């Protein structure tokens, strides 16, 4: 079930009515759990079996860790291995098999590729990470293992954030699941703007700008200028798409009395790589920081070389998390290298440029790096990108120059609602927000495309 369908709207209304009519928290949780599985298995019911198996396994492992602390390490390893096997089978098997085959054929050894061709269960990367973080927290003693399977299962399957995040920590979401919730009208009215904002971002901005970005990345040999314009359009698309999803997820959760974390904090204003990862996909970047980067030593490792390895390993894995393709890995490595380089230049996590000129320079540099990263991310393959970059640079005139200017103009046109939203959020004029909401509604009704696209992060 997807957030932009009327089926979801009907589903949400039915769930809300039933949910708030039930006075008891445990029954409410039961209803939420059942509806989350209906939501998840709407198109492919077998996805539910996989998620249920993963949930029960991690729940048992966490209990076992608490029960037998002397054996907690192998138990943790078992959970990590099981979760990685799940991901490995459904997400990465074909990719690795194909990569091995290519390497072998590079050495002149022809092998028949083994491919599973299994369908990637939507949201598997998100719920696996969520489940894994719970087990690690229990292992570290930061969280008590939960006795009630239903509560933990709801934490894993909670439908507003199940398929594309935000990746919630057990320490934040489980207490909310276990606490009684009361219906409050104020919560309802505060959820409305989140929905409107989300639908505006997805249906008006992301779906419209996607048409232009997709065309550029469908070209066989794109001129460099056009590639740059297409990447700009994609940057607008992916931000609007993903942050729009998060807004709708947060709005849905709020209607049920839950508060999810905000995944984005104006990422286009970032001044350095560290700053960027504090603003973009915050729930994933903080997950990677807490469960991978810091345990590997983070920025406090002794040698420069080791720090470089930590950066590359962390971000390379983060890239791989996004998708089973080398260009995603390259995107991660690029960001890892960027973080390392900035650190080496004394522009680490607490760095702030002084003065307007330096701030502007830092912003321009970081924006250019981010865009270069998006080119890696969106490119159909590394070979395609390499050939585009190696092509001779065409002049500003001619069809390619005109097309590049038009694509950039379309990206700017559709970024305008995002800028207005940001300005509206900062304004304190009391009349602006309802008027803005009215305008959002008009734009959503008149500018949504009949044939939209799936949310980008559904693929991950």
């Amino acid at each position, binding site marked *: 079930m997807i957030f932009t369908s*009327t089926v979801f709207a009907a589903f949400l209304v039915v769930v809300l009515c039933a949910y708030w009519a039930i006075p008891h928290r445990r029954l409410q949780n039961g209803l939420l759990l059942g509806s989350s599985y209906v939501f998840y298995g709407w198109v492919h019911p077998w996805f539910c079996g996989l998620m249920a198996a993963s949930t029960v396994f991690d729940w048992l492992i966490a209990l076992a860790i608490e029960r037998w602390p002397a054996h907690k390490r192998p138990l943790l390893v078992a959970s990590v291995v099981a979760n990685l096997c799940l991901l490995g089978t459904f997400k990465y098997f074909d990719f690795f098999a194909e990569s091995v085959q290519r390497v072998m054929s590079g050495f002149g050894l022809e092998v028949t590729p083994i491919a599973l061709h299994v369908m990637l269960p939507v949201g598997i990367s998100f719920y696996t990470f969520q489940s894994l973080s719970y087990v690690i927290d229990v292992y570290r003693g930061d969280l008590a293992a939960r006795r009630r399977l239903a509560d933990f299962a709801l934490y894993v399957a909670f439908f507003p954030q199940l398929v594309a995040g935000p990746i919630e920590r057990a320490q934040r979401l489980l207490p909310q699941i276990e606490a009684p919730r009361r219906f409050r009208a104020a919560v309802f009215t505060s959820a409305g703007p989140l929905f409107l904002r989300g639908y505006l971002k997805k249906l008006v901005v992301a779906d419209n700008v996607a048409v232009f970005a997709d065309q550029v990345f469908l070209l066989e040999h794109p001129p460099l200028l056009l590639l740059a314009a297409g990447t700009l359009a994609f940057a607008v698309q992916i931000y609007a798409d993903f942050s729009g999803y998060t807004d709708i997820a947060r709005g849905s959760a709020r209607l049920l009395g839950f508060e999810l974390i905000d995944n984005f904090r104006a990422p286009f204003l970032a001044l350095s790589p560290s700053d960027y990862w504090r603003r973009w996909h915050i729930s994933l970047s903080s997950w990677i920081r807490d469960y991978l980067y810091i345990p590997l030593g983070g920025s406090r490792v002794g040698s420069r070389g080791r720090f470089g390895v930590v950066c590359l390993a962390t971000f390379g894995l983060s890239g791989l998390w996004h998708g089973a393709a080398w260009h995603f890995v390259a995107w991660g490595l690029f960001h890892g290298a960027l973080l390392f380089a900035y650190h080496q230049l004394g522009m680490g996590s607490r760095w702030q440029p002084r003065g307007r000129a330096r701030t502007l320079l830092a912003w321009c540099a970081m924006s250019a790096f981010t865009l270069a990263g998006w080119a890696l991310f969106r490119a159909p393959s590394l070979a395609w990108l390499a050939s585009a970059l190696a092509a001779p640079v065409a002049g500003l005139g001619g069809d390619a120059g005109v097309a590049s200017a038009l694509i950039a103009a379309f990206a700017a046109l559709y970024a305008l609602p995002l800028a207005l939203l940001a300005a509206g959020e900062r304004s304190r004029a009391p009349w602006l927000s*309802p008027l803005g909401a*009215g305008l959002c509604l008009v734009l959503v009704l008149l500018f949504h495309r009949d044939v939209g696209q799936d949310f980008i992060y559904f693929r991950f």
Partner: protein
Amino acid sequence: MSSAWIATLSALLLLWGLDLVLAEPRIAGAASRAVAEVGELRTLVAERRPQLVLLGDSMVGEGVDAAALGRRIGLRALNVQKGGAASAWCYLALENLILPAQPPPQRVAVFYRDHFLTEPRFRVDGPYRQHLAALSGPDEPLLERLALEPVDPAIAWVRRGLPLYDRREALRSGVHGALMDGVGAALFGLQRGAAEASLTRVFADGALDPRRLGKRQLDAERADDDSFAFGRDVADSFLPEMVRLAEEGGVSLVFVRMKRRRDLEPNREPKELARYQQELGAWLAERGIPVVDFTHDARLRPEHYAAGDHLSRGEGRRVFTELLAEALAPQLADPRVPRS
């Protein structure tokens, strides 16, 4: 007054204000370019006075050399095609463009793929809506019922209450057109329409990666591909009305099934589709209408294809035109049809 009320009221005021400013009849909300294209087609039909019309989408435009075909079979042939056209467009073109021509053509060959003849909602939304609107008569109850009336009750409700909703595609293309003309004039000193023409040339099918274009095409079509069964779908399609209109207008139909890139590999045609074709063929045969099917014609080879399902403009078009002439000749051997 609460914020929610102010928001709703301001939205309603804005919408109805826009509705007043952009007042137009419902179905006539086509962008001027789509109207101009239909006008050009109408002129072409009037000028060429074709005896055989080849009706379909860009696969016809790319794959058939109408002049060469005409020479080969001894009839004046004309392509009446629109990129992305599907059954709704073909129905409207037959009803409002081909049959009213004076004199009307004696033959119309309708080109189709897979099960799209009985998929009335295929390609009727988004930019396609404008082209349908441009071809529509003042009242099109069948089009409205089969293709335009939303399946989704929420959308149907919005559409009834907000006439502007049907014109949003024209609104969007108006905004896009103004932006393109503005940028083209300001940065490159281009005249109206020239910037858009540049964009069209840059993203022409030939410039796109054929493998990924083909995949995207298949993916897009798979979305509409839930299930199909000829016996179930035919009554709620444009096909019976097309047959009736042709009979009434004294025009003979022939249906031509195009070979898709997918079918270059043997046995790739899904079983359900093969069954569908059999039933379609039988249904048409009962009405004395022939079908020519190129799906399994091995003479169309991979090197004849360009992007996606399109045949190449050179060799692909030449070979297919030959094959078409060969296949159509027996079907067109009707003594009532005078040769040019």
